[in-house]
């Protein structure tokens, strides 16, 4: 798998770490609380038919952290600015994973003209009716990562990025991401009290993708998303944890492609 070297660009008021490759219509990926560990297999496959754009959000990776970003709402507003600065042809297709799914959902509620189609993957943002969102902050970075995979030791992505003994630099990045997530999603933890009420107003065709064994965000949250957004459908991926794009890239890309081409 070819890696894509991240570029540092000036956009939306900060320095942004950006990975971008592929041909076709733009596909913006909004990453989750673990940041972008590299050019994932799923990105490479999607890049066969799309211009895949993967920025590291402010405070993640090498993107600088402005102090004013203190909520997911702030982050959502920032993403729309970033897309304008990149001159993306809009409306744009978007994948939002976990925390990034919450960001994407926030944008969809206030700027429907921004998105063409939306894929929410194990998205944060809603308080489940059954179960609770796993609290990363009561355990270590590694414990959270392992829990985000159904079978971490059998996942090529997990083993590649986090499976070996951590160098101090990697530990620092994991801690940096935990801190940034803490800054924006501490309380209420990983959810909004308003988002759910705004979802029925979304007009963007939406696919909700969930790992069948997600031990971070209960599947129930996916059901609520699919129920609340008009016309949305829910696809679960078997034998898969919180991050289908990493744990089951083939299944994931298939679902996404079908949805984007339909």
């Amino acid at each position, binding site marked *: 798998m070819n890696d894509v070297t991240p570029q540092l660009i000036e956009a939306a008021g900060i320095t942004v770490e950006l990975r971008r490759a592929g041909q076709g219509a733009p596909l913006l990926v909004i990453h989750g609380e673990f940041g972008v560990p590299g050019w994932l297999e799923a990105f490479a496959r999607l890049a066969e038919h799309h211009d895949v754009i993967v920025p590291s959000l402010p405070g993640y990776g090498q993107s600088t952290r402005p102090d004013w970003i203190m909520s997911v709402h702030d982050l959502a507003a920032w993403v729309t600015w970033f897309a304008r600065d990149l001159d993306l042809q809009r409306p744009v297709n978007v994948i939002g994973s976990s925390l990034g799914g919450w960001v994407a959902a926030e944008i969809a509620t206030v700027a429907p003209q921004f998105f063409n189609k939306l894929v929410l993957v194990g998205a944060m943002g809603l308080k489940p009716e059954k179960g609770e969102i796993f609290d990363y*902050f*009561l*355990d*270590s*970075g*590694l*414990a959270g990562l392992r829990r985000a995979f159904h079978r971490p030791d059998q996942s090529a992505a997990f083993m590649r990025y986090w499976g*070996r*003994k*951590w160098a*101090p630099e*990697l*530990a*620092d990045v*994991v*801690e940096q991401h*935990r*801190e940034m*997530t*803490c*800054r924006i999603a*501490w*309380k209420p933890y990983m959810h909004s009290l308003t988002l759910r009420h705004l979802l029925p107003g979304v007009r963007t065709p939406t696919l909700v993708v969930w790992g069948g064994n997600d031990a971070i965000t209960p599947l129930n949250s996916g059901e609520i998303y699919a129920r609340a957004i008009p016309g949305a459908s829910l696809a679960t991926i078997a034998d898969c944890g919180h991050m289908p794009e990493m744990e089951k890239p083939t299944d994931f890309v298939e679902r996404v492609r079908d949805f984007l081409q339909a």
Partner: protein
Amino acid sequence: MTRKFFFFSEMGYNAYPDDILERYGFTALLLPNSLFDREKASQLWRMFLREHEYASEMGFDGSVCNEHHNNILSMQESVNISAAVVSQHVKGTIALIGNPLPIHDNPVRVAEEIAMLDLISGGRIISGFVRGTGIEQLSTNANPAYNRERFEEAFALIKKTWTQPGPFRWEGKHYHLRVVNPWQLPLQKPHPPIWAAGILSPETIRWAAKERITYLVLGSALDATAQCREIYHEVARQDGWMPASEHLGYLIHTCVLDTDEEAFEMGRHHYGGASVIGRSGGVAASALTAGTGSAGVTGGPHPEWMAPPGYMSKQAKTGAMARERRASEGSYEEAVRAGLIVTGSPKTIIQKFKHIIDRTDPGYLTFWAREGKKPHQATMRGIELLGKEVIPALREHQSALVTGKEVTPWPQ
């Protein structure tokens, strides 16, 4: 200023089962409170208050209170309530190690309560402020990533409350108050002496020096404490002023009994006690290790609780003082050798404390003289010996840092 000698006890819950760590792996935050025995706790309160009272009778200059949450380490969930009660049992100063400012959403309430305390106690209050431990951020849901910002803003607001006439409006980053105009102000003018306390966080030491307030070193080894003093003095030198003794406080685990052997054995309560396994030792040490991020970080008693994201800087986790602290916490013997716990007969301990004073010159020397399951009788005897023999001998002793004389040797 004449050096002050204070008594301190975390007033920790000690009726826990001896194998608590083996059974649960931790002694705080998620430790089920079904283990809490209400009757026993009520008895403990009476015992703790008697110990404070006795320290006052034996000649201590004051008592020190503190606050922790969700932790067997301390039964003081409100330092202001503790101080209010203790002030009615002791004659001297009541020093508050700390109101953990970041956990409060209205710092003016803290300013009001301290004003009340100062008025009720007749101006006997020292008001310490702390950031709170990592556990407190989790148990009170105060965002650890903004801990330092909140601490500094709350401090500025409280200080303004005490030094500038109200009413005024406060529109900050974390605090927003329409009207700041508390009716009661402290008796001491413009406000009680202020401490900032910490466990070797270089940022807090520098900040305290910038604010010219006392930095209180909490139960740390001697070398590290001497380094704290150095950092403080360095910042002061850069700012063009010379700190006095009263700019440093030192809280130190102390176990004195009639013989060295008895004191050494009894001192184990200070190591194996709740404070070590619940806060300042085992857990913190693992947290610091975890900060360096080896893949095995989930081992140990939930180290993340002591250092939730953003709470501790990398420097504080991995700096020289943190390394020293870890090294001194490996065993009881190590902790005694490093001066983290000071034990001995009055004769021995007087010499040890002369050495400590010679190297750090604290204006406030606070003996952490009750801990864990140490029996009441042994605690009372320790208080008696400190009050009758140790403190009088130390009152006369001038620090070598002031006199330029040789440092008293550590007894062999």
